[in-house]
């Protein structure tokens, strides 16, 4: 049997599996609503530069009154410098989503590598990795991320690192458990008997089996990374770029609550809530479809 033939068999099997997955996923109404909301949010963030640019966040660009209530010119009112909250929220979504995605990606990649390694290599290496994972698991993640961000200085990159480094442990645990389950199956033994090395077994057999779980946990991780980013921004350790978190910080600093500027507090918060709920709904639906423990037997 040639390598090409094996490859195409594997691929057609994967396409079948994907079709089945998509059919199952569509059964979850919440998941579909979440997915739709996500697509809308991401597309809006991507097309933003076609309509507006960084100047909407410039303090001198504000043309309306400060804290002006919603009107035709500024549908969501204005902030303390007369800038339109709608345009700020739109432009800020780029920073919030970017940090959310990249931080989640970093966290998932670390979690995946450590999890698979800890599950695959028994003995001292696996034990050491588990020790480290457990240590990161007990660290209060928000506090640690605050310290890291404060020390490394608040650029977009350091915020991503601070969130990624403090949140990977949960994924590592999950992936390790799954790796152990996969490696207990007979075909791994067969593969070893045929001379498959560590690299072959982990990338060809373990990885495809843990990939669905990784997808589900990435989705949930993005949601929590976005919340963490906004919390860090609110607590004053973040990039000085406009994001939903920095807007809420400004609303607190400039006394929007006392000034009665409810739109300035409600709109950015609702954006965070909507995106986070969408990711959570998607993630839960993915989990329900993909997690073998939750899936009905059959």
């Amino acid at each position: 049997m040639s390598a090409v033939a094996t490859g195409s068999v594997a691929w057609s099997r994967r396409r079948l599996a994907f079709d089945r997955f998509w059919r199952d996923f569509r059964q979850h109404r919440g998941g579909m609503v979440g997915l739709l909301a996500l697509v809308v949010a991401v597309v809006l963030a991507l097309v933003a530069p076609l309509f507006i640019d960084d100047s909407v966040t410039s303090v001198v660009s504000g043309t309306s009154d400060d804290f002006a209530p919603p009107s035709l010119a500024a549908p969501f009112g204005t902030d303390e410098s007369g800038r339109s909250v709608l345009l700020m929220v739109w432009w800020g979504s780029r920073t919030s989503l970017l940090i959310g995605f990249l931080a989640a990606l970093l966290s998932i990649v670390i979690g995946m590598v450590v999890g698979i390694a800890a599950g695959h290599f028994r003995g001292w290496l696996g034990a050491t990795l588990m020790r480290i994972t457990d240590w990161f698991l007990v660290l209060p993640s928000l506090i640690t991320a605050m310290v890291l961000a404060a020390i490394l200085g608040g650029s977009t990159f350091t915020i991503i690192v601070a969130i990624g480094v403090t949140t990977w442990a949960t994924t590592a645990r999950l992936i390790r458990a799954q790796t152990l389950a996969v490696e207990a199956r007979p075909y791994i033994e067969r593969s070893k008997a045929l001379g498959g090395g560590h690299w072959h077994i982990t990338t060809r057999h373990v990885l495809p089996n843990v990939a669905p779980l990784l997808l589900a946990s990435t989705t949930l991780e993005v949601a929590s990374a976005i919340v963490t980013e906004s919390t860090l921004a609110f607590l004053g350790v973040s990039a000085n770029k406009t994001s939903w978190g920095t807007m809420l910080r400004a609303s607190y600093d400039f006394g929007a609550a006392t000034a009665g500027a409810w739109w300035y507090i409600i709109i950015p918060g609702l954006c965070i809530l909507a995106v986070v709920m969408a990711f959570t709904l998607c993630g839960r639906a993915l989990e329900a479809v993909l997690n073998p423990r939750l899936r009905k037997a059959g």
Partner: protein
Amino acid sequence: MTAPLEAAEPAAVQAAAGPGDERPTHRGTLQYALSKAGGALFSIAMVIIGTFFVFRLLPGDPVRNLAQGRNMTPTQLALERHRLGLDKPMLDQFVDFVGKTLRFDLGTSYEYKRPVLDLIGERLGPTLLLAGVGLVIAVSLGLWQGTRAGWRHNSRFDRVSTGVSLVLWSVPTFWLGLLLLMVFGVGIGPIPGIFPTRGIESVDAPDGFAYVLDVASHMVLPCLTLVAVVYAQYLLVMRSSLLEEVSQDYVTVARAKGLRDDEVRRRHAVPNALLPTVTLVFMRIGFVVGGAVTVETIYSWPGLGQLFYEAIRVPDFTLMQGTFMLITVAVILMNTLADVVYRMLDPRVRSA
């Protein structure tokens, strides 16, 4: 509301006086506790070592960082560097740091010009009060609603309470705090602001019982925010672990004996479902701590979280380092306690 908590007692008593050979079990538990304590010590050592190196990673000159851009002559810089021991080799600095930390000498805050430990001591009380009251309310509320939701799976109560808690779970703590501050603190439209939003007591705080009421009214909004974001996880875990118990054989047997529905739930299902949930209370203490920092910042609650926040804002690195180590060590100890208590409470894990 306290029904699930009362029900926990019989389970604990039964577990403690459970059948089976006593001595090996006890030795096993002791051994387990010792190994867990060893693990905790190792974790704490890693925290101290990690803190030392991370805080030396600070970009730039630490003395200039401490001086926050004030003009200093080279002589002043050198003197300051010598005073802080920064002119010594790294290894000496490390040994110094570890020695001092083990003697609870956390250094002197640059901002307050006072020992960090004194500052922490002053702020500990308000934090324990806020987090303690918040946690008790959140746990009772979560367990009570989780029990009701899990027992009547897919009922209207189940769907509503699970939905509400999922939304609250997704809400960023600080935003919820801002909303509550706006609605109940400042007032919106016809609603007047009814609760104070800053600090722990009024400027002209009265004496005696009136003082207690004053503090309590200051605590309403911070506590409400903390409870709202924390209770959801207890609800969800209690619900799902009760769901697992409901289909067990012993529940069917209890029903077959003719026990009332209420009794089956209170005396059989809930005590078993409670175990993983109670552990979670301790396990997630790090999450509560993160929530407390945010809540204390918003409502200017003079606690440890606000101290940490101020240290980050200044930035006052000695204070930051001290509060960080203290909070982290406290969280590690709570987690270890949870592991040991769980083992003692759950006969299944104990005998394994």
